[in-house]
């Protein structure tokens, strides 16, 4: 289907006007991750900006352009031309950043369109960027097309810490059931519409979500010959 809306959306993505450089997600200070210890090494003034790859310019290369075009055209037919917020091609992998509420529509088109056919879901992974204001929690999906040469696409959805809700994909990919439970368990992302969103790896009465960056690793000091080594997350490390 080709409509004016889809043309406009394709043109917008094709223009490459949105192509931006790396996007900062966090600023680190000091060289060894030590704070408040009266560091006299002189390295305390270092700052490093953590940047993740930003959106890519056209052409994306290989099959990536065709997949993005077909998907955007499908979505435009539903009035969701803006569902794809950003396209990133990095290390030969295609990542589509999807507007949170449009994730199920995008997944349905990716599964059902005969030119896309990403039938096999490879689960969801969470990533916590505490410094990425308003987009702290990322849910990352990998889909594989069995029909079209086992190509793999990545969808990324972000949610703020204050409102950690992402629509569930269990209705589209039943295999997401345990994967979404795991990501809920580990990150506290609430997958809305999941039939039974309970903890799966941690005990049911556990407090907190262990994979978040503000959740400590835990551990005890190691004593050896009178000296004491702190647990791994409290040791000096390279920031």
């Amino acid at each position, binding site marked *: 289907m080709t409509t004016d809306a889809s043309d406009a959306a394709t043109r917008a993505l094709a223009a490459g006007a949105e192509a931006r450089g790396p996007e900062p997600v*966090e600023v680190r200070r000091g060289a060894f991750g030590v704070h408040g210890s009266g560091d006299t090494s002189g390295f305390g003034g270092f700052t490093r900006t953590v940047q993740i790859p930003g959106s890519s310019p056209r052409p994306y290369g290989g099959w990536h352009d065709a997949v993005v075009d077909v998907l955007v055209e499908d979505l435009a037919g539903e009035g969701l031309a803006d569902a794809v917020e950003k396209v990133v091609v990095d290390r030969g*992998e295609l990542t589509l950043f999807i507007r949170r509420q449009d994730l199920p529509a995008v997944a349905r088109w990716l599964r059902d369109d005969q030119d896309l056919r990403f039938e096999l879901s490879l689960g969801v*992974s969470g*990533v916590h960027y505490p410094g990425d204001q308003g987009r702290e929690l990322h849910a990352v999906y*990998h889909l594989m097309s069995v029909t079209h040469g*086992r190509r793999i696409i*990545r969808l990324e959805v972000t949610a703020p810490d204050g409102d950690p809700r992402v629509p569930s994909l269990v209705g589209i990919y*039943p*295999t997401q059931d345990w994967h979404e439970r795991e990501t809920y368990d580990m990150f506290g992302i609430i997958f809305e519409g999941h039939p039974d969103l309970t903890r799966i790896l941690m005990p049911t009465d556990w407090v907190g979500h262990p994979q978040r960056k503000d959740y400590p690793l835990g551990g005890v000091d190691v004593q050896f010959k009178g000296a004491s080594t702190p647990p791994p997350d409290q040791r000096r490390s390279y920031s």
Partner: protein
Amino acid sequence: MTRLDEAAEFVAAGGDWDEIAQELSRRQEERVVVNMGPQHPSTHGVLRLVLELDGETVKETRVALGYLHTGIEKTMEYRTWVQGSALATRMDYVASILNEAGYCLAVEKLAGMTDRVPERAQVIRVLMMELARVSSHLVCLGSAGNELGGTTLMTIGFREREQVLRFFEMVTGQRMNNAYFRPGGLSQDLPPEALGWLKGVYGSMVRGMDDFDNMVMANPIWKARTVGIGQLNLAACMALGITGPMVRAAGLPLDLRKDKPYSGYENYDFEVCTADTADVYGRYLVRSNEMRESMKIVAQCIDKLEAMGPGPVMIDDPAVAWPAKLEIGPDGQGQSPAHVKEIMASSMESLIHHFKLVTEGFRVPAGQAFHAIEHAKGVFGVHVVSDGGTRPYRVHVREPSYNNLQSMAALCDGGTISDVVVCLASIDPVMGGVDR
């Protein structure tokens, strides 16, 4: 076990157990709830199944896991990129090498090192991965036979697996949890006697597989327990994300070694084994045939290595590769005395460099990568995220056992209780991988 009759008496512990009992007493049905595991010899580790039975028929299967959760993914965030290999290997401990392979390939993709891994390292990797696959399938077939009452099947499976483990010990210094694959290559080369030894046991390993097949594949008892049991067709497999021998037994030749070759798999001659029965028998048939294909690849690796001669097994990049010269000495694996002498006595810069590389590690450019390999259990995908530092920012593993275990309810519901163990064994879950 709780029997629901007029004098119903419940002794329950744990949240969901209570709810099940309450719901059953409300429904007033003649159902028995059996709590199988987590300590049960047939649950392949610490898996807990809650089975609702009506007589001998399973009405509802629930799976409870997490008993072996060790936070490997979290721990990786506090260790260097190289140390991650030693953690990944502990996930699915029956096929350790394949976990390392998935992790290292993902890190190499993220760091842009994929094309710089030396040829010899690639061939040794394929050799080790295929032996790990054989070892994993032997454990699967042997323990499945044991669970059906055939102890001899287990002894055959474990006897041949022992050869693989001896080879691993000879090469890596350890039988399991090898940490042999490192981002950029391997920790060390094969010892000189390894290939000769492997050729010596090659024939007996293939004969052991024949022993197994001769004993079960046409055996009426084995067939009665497996043919038509635990069926899961292709549509169900796709919906549930099932991969590996289960989906190949449903007829789809989904094998990433062929479809998206990595580590040079495109240079080997092998078939993707499938079956069209989609049942437990088909899954064992696929595994059994796959082992032989793996042995074919092993033979090709041996030929390649012999033709190739010595060469580096680690990336030629002093910023990544440890200047280590590991050797197996009389007291086990360690630094070669000559190398220790060099860095301690004559080259202080080498010592500093070595120290920095081991304690600090190398940096990987910020970004994310996903790499999927064909694990013995299915598609093993590793999602690695870097913040540009010396440690992973996030590692997530899409573990095939974890995913495939979701099909327990689909396999067991409506069948008899005697088939539960058969169905579970045909998924071949390893709880170290499931719970991570």
